[in-house]
């Protein structure tokens, strides 16, 4: 197989097209490294070793160098995550307002600790730096949605089926 066929065996034509569009904005291909990781992650949920190698090959950099970049950033996932990632703010104001009890209650409800994913693959729980909503502490994000003034006692309701549509 040619190099491109090799690549397409791992990345989709759509992913490659999106990465190539980013390449137009940078003077060297490696400049699009983070964008490329985010594109593939948007399609697949995470960056597998195979994806990493294929992206590195496409950008003309070593897989080790790209992995150094991928593992630097907290929102690039090198392990599979659930359909929704819970980002629990544990910076100082949320800590004063009870984020530790919040974490305990989420863990009890979902049966996962920090960094773990539920058995049904619905949620992954991660700690997050100050989410910039300290006047509404404690806060967390579930997927793209910010939840403010979260009550440690009722937080479990956020994870009931259909809770976010209410």
């Amino acid at each position, binding site marked *: 197989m040619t190099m491109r066929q090799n690549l397409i065996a791992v990345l989709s034509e759509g992913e490659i097209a999106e990465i190539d569009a980013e390449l137009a*904005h*940078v*003077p060297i291909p*490696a*400049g*699009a*490294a*983070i*964008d490329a*990781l*985010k594109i593939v992650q948007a399609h697949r949920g995470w960056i597998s070793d195979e994806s990493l190698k294929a992206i590195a090959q496409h950008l003309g950099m070593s897989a080790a160098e790209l992995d*150094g*970049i991928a593992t*630097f*950033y*907290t*929102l*690039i996932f090198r392990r599979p995550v659930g359909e929704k990632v819970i*980002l629990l703010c*544990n*910076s*100082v*104001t949320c*800590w*004063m307002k*009870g984020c*530790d*009890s919040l974490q305990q209650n989420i863990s009890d409800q979902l049966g996962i600790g920090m960094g773990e994913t539920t058995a049904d693959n619905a949620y992954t729980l991660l700690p*997050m*730096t*100050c*989410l*910039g*909503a*300290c*006047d*509404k*502490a404690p806060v967390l*994000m579930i997927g*793209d949605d*910010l939840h403010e003034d979260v009550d440690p006692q009722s937080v479990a309701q956020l994870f009931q089926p259909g809770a976010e549509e209410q």
Partner: protein
Amino acid sequence: MSLDRPLTRNVRADRSPTDMAAYEANGGYQGLHAAMGKMAPADCLKTIQDSNLRGRGGAGFPTGMKWSFVPMDDPADAPGSNKHKYLICNADEMEPGTFKDRLLLECDPHQLIEGMILAAYTIGADVAYIFIRAEYVVATALLRKAIADCHAKGYLGTNILGTDFSLEMHVHPSAGRYICGEETALISALEGKRANPRAKPPFPQVSGLWGRPTIVNNVETLCNIHHIIERGPQWFQDLGLTSDAGTKMYGVSGRVKNPGCWELPIGTPIREILEDYAGGMEDGYKMRGFLPGGGSTDFLVEEHLDLAMDYDTIGKAGSRMGTGTMIILDDRTCPVGFVKNLVEFFSRESCGFCTPCRDGLPWSAQVLDDIECGRGLPEDMDTLARQVTFIGAMGNTHCALAPGAMEPLASGLKYFRDDFERHITEGSCHFHKEVHS
């Protein structure tokens, strides 16, 4: 329109976003119309310099002076040369306790974009980026829509309002990490690399993104620009209550009755912000101290409440105004736990480049954890003091992250020393039961 609260004049009580039509109906893009073709970039620069606007991201560096370092007379920079100059808006708001830029981004995205167009015009930038933290999902969508609307109006793109000035603007969501808010680390991230800060000089104004002249400004700083261009430097200076100019987004979080974020004249007394706007302490809580401007500023205490909240006054009191968003330490929260939370945060967010930060901050965090959990030894107090001296000294580290981490620790040891020592002598935390109640 409110002239004394320019930044928040379009902010509605329900925080719904101001779109292009509403923005223009309230006088928006008048600054752009006023400048394009009528003011030379040098005129705009002089206006900003004369206004005494200082960077609102935390360091307080004079904005006009920063812009003045961008080379303007290099023939290689002429339009059509294919050599870019860059303007970057730092919307990577991650400083613990800081929630002011979110408000400006979500409620009035066009105010930022108008300021950015004028800033880019002033420094001769032809490409602009808004580097925004990925968690600001709502703001990212609003900014993208606002940029598209600006293209439709001829405010962005080629030959803006019939001039020879052209500007492309991109929204670039981050991939995470607090250090990306440091301007040279942000540039590394935009180049697709690990976000390690860079040694200065060369300064980004001369050699920044891709080795080209680059200005990085905070959201709130850029939101001020079009108001100053439109109304002049004297109007802006008159807004401030002290020697500093303009208004400031102030915030209060912690156990106060009404936590929030308000635009007030710069130099408003701390007591007024805490009592009149934040409503004073919650019933049953007393204030023991506060960080005036985010997690990397030194504690101030009761005796400082009547100080003016401006750069120089807070600096003289031994802290920094920082982002202007205060975090209140109350009497039922453990000061050791409070400082431990902050140092653990900074330790986690170290980029790992230099040793005092990479190895020193986890050590500090470990000592604080030992004390908080009742394993502390008397000599730990000396260890912490040595860490403050070594890690906290500018020049020992590659950037300001680790010295920033030492600010709440150094001042915590100064103002709450009895609490640290009591943890060690009692072998436990005397707040423990109250902390999470």
